[in-house]
């Protein structure tokens, strides 16, 4: 092992800093035509007419597709189900005249160039019959329901345990509050886009912004009834996604439709405002109650969430489950309901569900600590969970206690004056807050291929993606270590539907899943090479077995006498191969899944400074102590956590998509009015990786890092704002008006 565990710069770094990396909307072809989408102006209703004559008359316009003239293809709703679709009937672009959400595409203009397509789109007149719509969760929550069909991969809340009502009533100290989080949008920097290259004879190559090329591949073949071999989807670089690229979107369907109909290459890129109609983090209202003994022991936890979904799909995520396992408690009642809005279906967004539920739980824990006059960290240690209360299973590993200790020490938590408004510097009130973060550690079944080339270099391949997470780099590290090669001798190929099967990149599972598959196939390759080497005439390794040899620098050598070796190339040739390619599939251990719970944990400590008169808030210091198993690459790992923390700061103080309920439309659909953190908003972020051995979650010992950085951060900031100002804001984001109001 020489690479795993050491800080390595990204292997795709040069491509990204020189502009050589190409993203979905940047591929081209000599016959490329450009599509531009016309979006619905109403939230609910039906299209009465689409006047396209003026657009068609514009020189350079090739076609205008609407529901009235779209080509006939497989249009059953089931054909639109993708790998991560929630239960329901997925949206079908240009299927019929019905409008299900504002921003829904109602026409696609295709022209010789982008300017003409955009110009022509502005000439299209759409007349609607508008139906009454409802986009306000506060109204619709009265009609909230428990979804009858559960979403694959999302555990519904566990059944109640103990008697939470009685325990809460009997608890000497309790908190009961409502905590809500505004809708948010992913806003990756790269606009969603699909470039479909017409290869002739019904074959297409699709460059799509997607977190799993095979998800788009299956979607296209199902929707358009194409043979699998006639479609190839590529996504070697994804300019951010954070969940927005998990599901194939309508620009993909429309670009493919146009390409097949026109028999030429077509690109459809969305504008920033059109991207607000792809999906969002659902608005969520939590009702949270905690009851405790006078010494801080939790007696009751009650947590119910109501979250928005659409009228056509029951989008679900795990919001309340965390409250049943974060702390030790015998009386727990959890509930999760949906309320339908006339809006697009929500879409998984970084750590879907967790920061919403944990904002409620960790805010309530903080409120409880003040009622108990107990340090918030001490309250959490007092209720430390040694087993998963939801299942009764032990954890595969849990070094949260060490994370609390190391984080508190680095932050200087012991110097905190617990009194709100007690710390001040100049005109700024200073607040210190903390919270716990939890996310699932998962591994998914994944296949990988390893190919030893004639020149001794290695190619490893699996269909997964790198959305900025560092997949290319860690796979190169893993493969190089497994085969005893230099990282420079390893070529990683991902983001291609024709490669061995991989799930979408998401859920923080890619390092454990793709990483384990790559390691396993490399080990298989070693076995094969050794077999060939042993069977060579007069082989120096004739009697050697795996434990007798090393694989380094392209040689299989005897441990006892490294001068006796066979090169990989000679071994391959002896086996009759010019190159050697093997495939292997790895899956999580079902016994572990049945008997253990596996989570990553974090302890987040933050300092906020609040201008007392103006209410301006700054997060000046964050210490995030993370227990996530083995860290493959401390450099890219730290970046994952920093990014998650920045998202937590955005969730706490800035991010909010406003809906005009009269129009049923998101109003601030641009980056000037939808605020994401900018450089000046971000100060010191200190990341600690706590030592944690985990031999169960995955063969690699990794637990994943993509989500954990955001979970708990918003709650820690809200708690710090209370400590600074004495104001408890239970409604994110915490904007100036709420602090000085």
């Amino acid at each position, binding site marked *: 092992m020489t690479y795993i565990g050491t800080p390595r710069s990204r292997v795709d770094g040069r491509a990204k*800093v020189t*502009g050589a990396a190409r*993203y979905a909307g940047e591929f081209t072809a000599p016959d490329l035509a450009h599509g531009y989408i016309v979006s619905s102006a109403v939230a609910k209703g039906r299209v009465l007419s689409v006047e396209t004559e003026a657009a068609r008359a514009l020189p350079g316009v090739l076609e205008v597709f609407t529901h009235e003239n779209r080509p006939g293809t497989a249009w059953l709703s089931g054909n639109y189900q993708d790998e991560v679709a929630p239960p329901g009937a997925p949206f079908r672009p240009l299927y019929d005249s019905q409008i299900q959400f504002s921003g829904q595409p109602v026409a696609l203009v295709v022209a010789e160039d982008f300017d003409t397509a955009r110009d022509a789109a502005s000439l299209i007149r759409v007349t*609607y019959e508008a139906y009454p719509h409802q986009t306000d969760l506060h109204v619709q929550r009265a009609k909230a329901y428990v979804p009858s069909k559960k979403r694959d991969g999302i555990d519904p809340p566990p059944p109640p345990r103990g008697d939470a009502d009685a325990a809460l009533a009997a608890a000497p100290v309790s908190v009961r509050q409502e905590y809500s989080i505004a809708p948010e949008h992913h806003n990756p920097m790269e606009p969603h886009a699909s470039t479909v290259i017409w290869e002739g004879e019904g074959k297409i190559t699709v460059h799509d912004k997607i977190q799993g090329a095979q998800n788009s591949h299956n979607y296209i073949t199902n929707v358009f009834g194409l043979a699998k071999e006639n479609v190839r989807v590529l996504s070697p670089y994804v300019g951010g996604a954070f969940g927005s690229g998990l599901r194939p979107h309508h620009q993909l369907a429309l670009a493919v439709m146009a390409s097949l109909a026109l028999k030429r290459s077509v690109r459809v890129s969305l504008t920033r405002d059109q991207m607000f109609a792809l999906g969002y983090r659902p608005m969520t209202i939590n009702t949270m109650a905690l009851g405790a003994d006078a010494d801080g022991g939790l007696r009751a936890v009650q947590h119910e969430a109501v979250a928005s979904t659409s009228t056509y799909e029951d989008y679900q995520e795990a919001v309340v489950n965390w409250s049943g396992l974060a702390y030790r408690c015998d009386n727990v009642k959890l509930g999760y309901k949906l309320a339908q809005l006339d809006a697009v279906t929500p879409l998984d967004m970084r750590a879907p569900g967790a920061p919403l539920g944990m904002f409620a739980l960790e805010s309530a824990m903080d409120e409880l600590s003040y009622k108990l006059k107990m340090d918030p960290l001490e309250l959490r240690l007092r209720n430390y969970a040694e087993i998963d209360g939801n299942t009764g299973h032990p954890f595969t590993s849990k070094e949260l206690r060490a994370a609390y200790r190391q984080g508190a020490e680095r932050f200087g938590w012991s110097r905190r004056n617990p009194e709100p408004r007690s710390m001040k510097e100049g005109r700024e009130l200073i607040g210190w807050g903390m919270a716990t973060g939890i996310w699932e550690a998962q591994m998914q079944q994944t296949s990988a291929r390893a190919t030893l080339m004639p020149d001794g270099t290695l190619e490893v391949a699996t269909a997964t993606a790198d959305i900025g997470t*560092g997949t290319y780099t860690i796979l190169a590290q893993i493969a190089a270590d497994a085969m005893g090669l230099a990282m420079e001798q390893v070529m990683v190929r991902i983001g291609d539907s024709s490669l061995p099967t991989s799930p979408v990149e998401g859920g923080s599972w890619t390092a454990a899943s793709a990483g384990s598959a790559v390691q396993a196939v490399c080990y298989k390759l070693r076995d094969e090479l050794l077999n060939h080497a042993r069977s060579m005439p007069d082989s120096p390794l004739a009697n050697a077995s795996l434990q007798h040899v090393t694989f380094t620098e392209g040689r299989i050598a005897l441990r006892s006498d490294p001068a006796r070796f066979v090169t990989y190339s000679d071994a391959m040739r002896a086996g009759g191969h010019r190159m050697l390619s093997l495939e292997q599939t790895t899956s999580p251990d079902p016994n572990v899944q049945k008997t253990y719970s596996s989570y990553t944990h974090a302890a987040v400590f933050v300092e906020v400074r609040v201008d007392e008169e103006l209410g301006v808030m700054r997060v000046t210091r964050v210490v995030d102590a993370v227990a996530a198993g083995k860290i493959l690459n401390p450099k890219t790992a730290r970046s994952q956590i920093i*990014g998650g923390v920045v998202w937590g700061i955005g969730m706490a103080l800035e991010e909010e998509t406003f809906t005009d309920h009269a129009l049923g439309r998101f109003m601030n659909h641009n980056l000037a009015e939808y605020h994401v953190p900018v450089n000046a908003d971000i100060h010191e972020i200190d990341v600690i990786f706590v030592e944690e051995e985990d031999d169960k979650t995955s063969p690699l010992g990794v637990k994943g890092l993509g989500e954990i950085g955001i979970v708990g951060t918003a709650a820690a900031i809200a708690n710090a704002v209370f400590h600074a100002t004495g104001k408890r804001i239970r409604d994110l984001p915490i904007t100036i008006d709420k602090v000085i109001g």
Partner: protein
Amino acid sequence: MPGISASPGQLASAAALPVSRPADGIPITLTINGTRRQLAVQPWTTLLDLLREELNLTGTKKGCDHGQCGACTVLLDGQRINSCLALAVTKDGAEVTTIEGLAKADGSLHPLQEAFVEHDAFQCGYCTPGQICSAVGLLREGHAHNADEIRELMSGNICRCGAYPNIVAAIEQVRQDGGAA
């Protein structure tokens, strides 16, 4: 039933406006990454679209097309600008440097490109060309003397991956090394 007629985001009178399209475009000259180019552009074509769509220089990114995100930042006569807000026709005679023009001919990277890789100052890479071009302009301006001023003066370039601390570290290192040009 009353109908609503609308084309979101478009002027109601757009259909009535006569659009004049110079058949071959308007001739301009730009020096792009050191190469002088005679071009014919439409009056409405932005510098960004010219670079990406017509010259295949896709290193310059389109993130919002409204001057709100900074992904399209290029150097125009040495100054950082949002190329999505610049009509190409108004820049006749200008010198444009894009991300593709920062590395030396022998392939060796600009100090800021090196520092971005070394400090892991990006994740997905989409805002990165704009960040780097912006940082080149920033160091030339000479107004940033510490990390706080870098943060402030780099706030026109959004990084949704949240690589800001590493972006600041990369720029601060190059600033201290004096490798601005």
